[in-house]
């Protein structure tokens, strides 16, 4: 069963080409990492899956339901099955930390949970889940703070708590470890892995920290020159047969990435 199916998706902003014939499938319950140079279109791909942006052409299905050309109101039920962590957090600055995390639950998310009452979670159940989630991301004691009072790393952890509090069936993490120190990064990935094991959710994680990402996901796809040019096991990503991926993962200055640069290469089968 496929959670996400993307076929020949194209996306442009004005004259700027962002995605050029992306095709990707995510079977249910799998964890896929997405890596690529800055401005390669990784975040745009995440937003397309969530229906926040529409592709110019191509097919995009989530849980067998097409999101292409759908009205905002019709995307609601599908979005309630998706948890999303934004690259820039997208926390609501008019709410406190705990209100941010409780927000999805108060608006009908997570009602598939065992502790629902009449289709909606009780206030006590929401408070309990929020407290547990904040404790899990190391933010117990920061419940009453406004998001403006938090550091970048703390904001990221609030975003993770909000994205995971409702036990969504598909979770998209856009840079879950950006702004976090190595120890917290590993703790966060351990937490995400434990969550995924518990819920069986399908995960798409975008990250520049390939080493940490590889400990969490099953496979990694490399987005380059507006396309997915490689997809392979996460455990062996550093020894990928694709020279672009090898250079990117190892952070080497010399290589095909350096010669072509993002968006300039026409050779998509470099090995």
């Amino acid at each position, binding site marked *: 069963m496929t959670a996400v199916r993307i076929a020949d998706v194209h996306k442009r902003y004005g004259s700027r080409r962002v995605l050029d014939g992306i095709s990707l499938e995510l079977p249910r319950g799998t964890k896929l990492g997405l890596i690529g140079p800055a401005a390669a279109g990784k975040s745009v791909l995440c937003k397309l899956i969530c229906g926040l942006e529409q592709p110019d052409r191509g097919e995009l299905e989530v849980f067998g339901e097409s999101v292409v050309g759908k009205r905002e109101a019709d995307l*609601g039920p599908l979005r309630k099955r998706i948890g999303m962590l*934004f690259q820039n957090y*997208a926390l*609501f*600055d008019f709410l406190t930390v705990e209100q941010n995390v409780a927000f999805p639950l108060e*608006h009908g998310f997570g009602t598939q949970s065992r502790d629902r009452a009449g289709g909606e979670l009780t206030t006590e159940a929401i408070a309990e889940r929020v407290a547990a989630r904040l404790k899990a991301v190391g933010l117990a004691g920061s419940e009453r703070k406004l998001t403006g009072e938090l550091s970048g790393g703390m904001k990221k952890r609030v975003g993770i708590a909000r994205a995971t509090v409702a036990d969504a069936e598909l979770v998209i993490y856009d840079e879950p470890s950006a702004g976090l120190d190595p120890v917290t990064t590993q703790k966060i990935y351990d937490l995400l892995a434990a969550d995924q094991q518990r819920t069986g959710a399908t995960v798409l994680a975008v990250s520049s920290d390939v080493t940490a990402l590889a400990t969490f996901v099953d496979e990694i796809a490399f987005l380059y020159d507006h396309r997915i040019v490689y997809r392979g096991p996460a455990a062996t990503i550093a020894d990928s047969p694709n020279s672009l991926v090898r250079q990117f993962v190892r952070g080497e200055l010399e290589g095909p990435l350096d010669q072509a640069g993002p968006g300039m290469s026409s050779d998509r089968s470099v090995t």
Partner: protein
Amino acid sequence: MISAIGAGALRIAQEVGGIVLLAGQVLRALIPPRMDTRELWKNLYKMGNRSVPIVVLTAFFSGALMMLQAGPFVKKFGATGLAGWGAGYAVLREIGPILIALMFSGRVGANNTAELSTMTVTEQLDGLRALAIDPVRFLVVPRVIAMVVMLVALTAIGDLVALVGATLIGRAMLDIELSSMYYSITENLKPYDFLHGIYKSIAFGVAIAMSSCYFGITVRGGAVGVGRAVNAAVVAAAVSIMLLDFFLTYLTG
């Protein structure tokens, strides 16, 4: 030159079209009325209560100014019985609604645009959409209702304070009896004079709310974009207030 004029006209048409479309979305969200009541109450308090001091100050001195301007002439012609009517007529029908709307636009409208545009550039609106919440229903509708309701309420308060200001200044600086002012106001001014200003304040409230919300949610370009959006919203609101005032006065007398 011609192409610049054409481009300017197209841009204005685009903005006006965008505001009308947003107004349509707001109307659709109101039938049946479904909105976050917490957001509505929060905005009613923030936009209304906290604007009272500045509105009272503005209204008091606008009434006082009307009296200062008219006072010497009514004294000269011995028509002190018309002083209250003169000040009240101008305040209730024109000066009160316009000045309070401009103050409201500068304080509440600009703040609203800054808030919404900051939320837009920090992807908070996308965050709402990702949580299956319509930003127009959740953020724009409560703000539009709060701004219209509170501008009407503030205009009514401002009218009263302006008349008090005119009366006190008439007594203190022009020696016009309080009773003379009272009878001049109550016997010469009609309820329609007050309602005329209230109708205008409803229209001004809608114009301020729609322009401030529209420029807030369509902002592009980070912090610079936020500044531009606030500027555009304040200018659009001020121009709308003047145009609406002219046409409403022309059409309703």
